[in-house]
């Protein structure tokens, strides 16, 4: 039995530490620890609720829109503000653009190096690489000359003797299975994706002034004026620019990302049987296509338990609780109502520098969210499974195509590979859908509806003396909820339950493992000194640790049931 520590887990957002027991070439047990705390909810207390989105937005600069969205929704829910149609459409565009860009970056820049051996690419034959590229896609950058150029660039880089971010990695590890040509193809697309993401995210600059940390959110709407006849507003020029960017996004996603995922996956089909995890999936749902708060969402909400795709249960937010038995917070004496309770950070781990955490005691800054007492996986896989199980036609078609091409059954989705495939399917789906919201924006302009804000609720004098609100959002990494308590126009309490808290949290009061911990069980480890396989499963969740660490609630407390508008 050997004890492995992976800290830092790199190619993620934030600070994650994995400890694992490995025996017989497999992970026998695992612990997930988040090692950074800021206390943003404590900082929010007493502040103007209209400012909260900017504070919470800085929870994460990777998914840089998600906490702003959840925050404005929570405050709007509390004060009864109703954003007009343009604000809904602008938010949909911002959210979908975030998801598309984030998923592509995740695959190429955060995850690919777990599957792609860069050094092996040096021995690729450019002509064969070209043949491979042209056999899986009609993407034009596929000539022998092109791949020869990429290979030369890579070789020159290596020959200079400064490997920079590619130094010290697990190149040559027996778990790398791609032939040299597939590795070279992937390196070429790693570089292309680096350029593409920078271009595509200009969507956010158009809609939010800048990226990261867009600055156009408002409680009650959006700050981006809409007017086809004004140069200082979103106008038909902006519509044209956005359509150009989304067309290129569809091109890249359909002709590069999807074929690459299928090609890489075809060499790693064993990973369709590894990394399943807890087998429970939770989704809040996203993308309102109507201004009726009760209308269904483009991606439906729901809960799947025990991998039963045939039964999607309705989501009941009152069943969400959080445990802190293994988290560095004071234990709550008894369940408390949100407006009364507050736990405090209390570090009881080893004094740094340390070698090992005491995993029998408290070992993470993350808490352990549970739904009906059970750990839940959230994220693209959960969304695609719930949509699939709910009869979403296009999701069923896309998932069906991927499964057919890989010649595997639906059970393959419950795996490390399933997460990668689901993320890609979602990207294809949103890249198809996003233009409908650009068209809706143009349609509103044509009708002369230029409203962007519910101005009647801007002045805090119009708010009730005390109000509670909840804001839900499907972030790229999964189900996100913000809860706010407003008193006399100020924030009395604020709390977030975040995708990476669901996925990366530690064991709960009943010692049930969190999704990362459960997914790592029985993961093969060929060489304990080079735990590449552990990275594969952890990265398949797309960890976002800065998001996950939150403070202001107590064990087993039920969260207020408030429907988000």
């Amino acid at each position, binding site marked *: 039995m050997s004890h492995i*520590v992976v*800290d*830092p*887990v*790199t*190619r*993620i957002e934030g*600070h994650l530490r994995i400890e694992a027991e490995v025996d017989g070439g497999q992970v026998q047990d695992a612990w997930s620890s988040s*090692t950074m*705390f*800021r206390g*943003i909810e404590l*900082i929010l207390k007493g*502040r*103007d609720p*209209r*400012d909260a989105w900017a504070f919470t937005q*800085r*929870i994460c*600069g*990777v998914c840089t829109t998600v906490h702003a969205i959840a925050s404005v929704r929570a405050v709007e829910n509390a004060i009864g503000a109703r954003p007009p149609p343009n604000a809904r459409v602008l938010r949909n565009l911002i959210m979908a653009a975030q998801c598309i860009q984030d998923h592509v970056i995740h695959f190429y*820049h955060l995850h690919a*190096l777990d599957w792609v051996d860069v050094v092996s690419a040096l021995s690729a034959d450019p002509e064969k690489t070209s043949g491979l590229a042209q056999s899986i896609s009609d993407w034009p950058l596929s000539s022998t000359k092109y791949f020869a150029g990429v290979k030369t660039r890579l070789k*020159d*880089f290596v020959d*200079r003797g*400064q490997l*920079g*971010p590619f*130094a*010290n*990695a*697990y190149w040559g590890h027996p778990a790398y299975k791609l032939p040299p040509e597939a590795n070279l193809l992937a390196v070429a697309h790693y570089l292309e994706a*680096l*350029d593409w*993401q*920078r271009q595509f995210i*200009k969507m*956010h*600059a*158009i809609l939010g*002034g800048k*990226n*990261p*940390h867009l*600055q*156009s959110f408002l409680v009650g*709407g959006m700050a*981006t*004026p*809409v007017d086809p006849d*004004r*140069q200082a507003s979103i106008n038909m020029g902006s519509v044209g620019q956005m359509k150009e960017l989304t067309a290129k996004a569809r091109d890249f996603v359909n002709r590069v990302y999807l074929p690459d995922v299928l090609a890489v996956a075809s060499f790693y089909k064993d990973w369709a049987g590894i990394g399943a995890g807890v087998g429970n999936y939770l989704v809040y749902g996203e993308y309102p296509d109507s201004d009726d708060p009760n209308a269904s969402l483009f991606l439906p909400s729901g809960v799947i338990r025990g991998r039963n795709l045939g039964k999607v249960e309705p989501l009941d937010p009152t069943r969400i609780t959080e445990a802190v038995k293994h988290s560095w917070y004071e234990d709550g004496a008894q369940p408390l109502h949100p407006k009364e309770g507050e736990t405090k950070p209390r*570090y009881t781990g080893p*004094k*740094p520098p*340390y070698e090992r955490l005491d995993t029998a005691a408290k070992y993470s800054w993350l808490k352990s969210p549970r739904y009906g007492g059970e750990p839940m996986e959230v994220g693209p896989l959960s969304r695609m499974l719930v949509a699939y199980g709910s009869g979403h036609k296009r999701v069923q078609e896309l998932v069906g195509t991927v499964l057919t091409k890989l010649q595997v059954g639906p059970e393959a989705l419950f795996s490390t590979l399933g997460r990668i495939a689901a993320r890609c399917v979602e990207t294809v789906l949103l890249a198809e859908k996003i233009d409908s919201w650009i068209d809706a924006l143009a349609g509103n302009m044509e009708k002369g509806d230029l409203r962007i*804000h519910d*101005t009647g609720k801007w002045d805090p004098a119009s708010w009730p003396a005390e109000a509670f609100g909840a804001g839900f959002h499907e972030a790229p990494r999964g189900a996100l909820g913000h809860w706010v308590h407003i008193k006399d126009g100020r924030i009395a309490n604020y709390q977030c339950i975040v995708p990476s808290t669901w996925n990366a949290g530690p064991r709960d009061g009943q010692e049930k493992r969190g999704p990362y911990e459960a997914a790592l069980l029985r993961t093969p480890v060929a060489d304990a000194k080079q735990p590449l396989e552990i990275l594969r499963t952890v990265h398949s969740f797309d960890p976002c640790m*800065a998001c996950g660490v939150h403070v202001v609630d107590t064990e087993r407390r039920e969260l207020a049931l408030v429907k988000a508008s």
Partner: protein
Amino acid sequence: MGTRDGWLAGELRRRGVSRRELLFFCAGVAGTFGLPASAASQIAAALTRAKKPVLVWLEFQDCCGNTESFLRSGAPTVGEIVLDLLSVDYHETIMAAAGTQAEEALRGVVKGSAGQFLAVVEGSIPTGADGAYCTIGGRSALDIARDVCGKAAATIAVGTCATYGGLPAASPNPTGALGVADAVPGVKNLINLSACPVNAANLAALLTYFLTFKRWPPLDGFRRPLFAYGKTIHDNCERRAHFDAGQYVEIWGDDAHRAGACLYKMGCKGPVTYQNCPTVRWNEGTNWPIGCGHPCIGCAEPDFWDRMTPFYKHLPSIPGFAAASSVDTVGGWLTVGTAAAYVGHGVLKGVQNSRKKGAGPPGEKSSSETGGLP
């Protein structure tokens, strides 16, 4: 590297970039920094001689927003910076190695290139709980920052958290978070690139400046390069004419808002914020916050989370100026706006100094320190 003098010249030739084109590019760089055209050949010579300097990028109490901003760099692109211009030997978000192998890479630089490498710091450094609020590989952020920045040739603090403590240091600063200047006093050649996040254009310009001249640019009192922080947002704002004419947005989405009127009354902090957003803009010049209809929130200034909030309250209550009465007097505003900008700068600097004396445990920040803009 070491023996690779002239690799850039070869690199450029390989990519079909002629000497003439390189000189043309360098003339553009010279123009950016307000240098005479004759400097272009000097820059070109410097670039073609350059070896790849080693850079390590540390992330502490961060949101990764500065890294993401770095990924949006367009001139040079992030690919060119990482593969061609610098050797980025440690950067958690992009590096292939993890765990032990990642830590070895960092140790290798600190030992092997002591006094020669560049350090970039993203995120604040917590001093509470013996450093347990942020650990990497079991070591505290403070320990790592002292070790790495202490041995770096220069340290670039990117974003407002690394510069001044930023969001984690906002009242009541639950973790005792500090920026690099306060957490590692006396660190050599510290350059602050504040803003939330840093604008990739400014980081790229700073790196180009250094690679070209082998020295660092002139800085303001907060150790920020004058080429990016020498003027206020207000000085260069495209809506300045509306301010001067007394044309203000009053309601989100009203006619004035759609027409691009001044956002002063909606809470704009442009008059007290030193940053070049209006001229370089964001995402390769695509847009900027005021350009999309939202006020400036002052994100490049120290303690902006406390001093610039509430964000939607307008500015007249600058310390020392009881000017609210003249809010609709255009002539008065011209004077007040300009004066307030300088006063704001001075006042904020005072606060920065007072924070350096004693960061204090969490919760001890006084209201007078945090409530500058009521």
